[in-house]
């Protein structure tokens, strides 16, 4: 699956996107965040406070219990500040 990072989430992790293949027990956004947090100190810092991170699956905002699969594009970012 493709994972994308924006704003300070991207800054902390140091890359804007990556292809990952998490284990089978990663089934939703919340478990994907926990698994990603173990990939590097930057990932750990970005996901240290999961409540501060928002997610989108395939270009739609979604909640932590939203399912994720190998063909999905999942993005993580802070609350939006456009307009």
């Amino acid at each position, binding site marked *: 699956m493709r994972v*994308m990072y*924006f*704003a*300070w989430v*991207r*800054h902390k992790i140091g890359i804007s996107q990556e292809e990952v293949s998490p284990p089978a027990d990663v089934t939703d956004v919340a478990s994907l965040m926990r698994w990603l947090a173990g990939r590097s100190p930057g990932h750990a810092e970005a996901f240290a406070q999961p409540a501060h991170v928002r997610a*989108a699956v395939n*270009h*739609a*905002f979604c909640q932590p219990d939203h399912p994720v699969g190998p063909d999905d594009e999942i*993005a993580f*970012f*802070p*609350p*939006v*500040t*456009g*307009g």
Partner: protein
Amino acid sequence: MATIRVQEAPFDQQAEHAALMAGRADVGGIAAFTGICRADDGLAALVLEHYPGMTERALAEIAAEAERRWSLTGCTVIHRFGRIGPGEPIVLVLTASAHRQAALESCAFLIDWLKTGAPFWKREEFPDGTGRWVDAKAEDDAAAERWRRA
């Protein structure tokens, strides 16, 4: 059908205004909101990041919702990204309708939703080279929320 643009370049508000009038005799009012980069705290620039692909989809959904709620003859949303200096425009919302109330309300609705529903992030840059990500505001959530109740 709304006009949606996500672009780095400045926009021409007069041309967008004219486009909403072109070939129509039923436009009684056009409401507009232009969001502008303030020079807060000696800001050097805002840098706006967005999520290409999702941004266009989110803006089109917001505009379609405005067209469902109000009787509009046209609707234009342009949001810039990249580096934007103090005094430069960031976002333009134009809504046209036969009646002023529909134009005014839908314009306010769109800008309130844009603040909370479009994947943009602002970073402030200062003359000394430092920067900071702008935090989301609780008041923006409240402003968007009032339309949910409507």
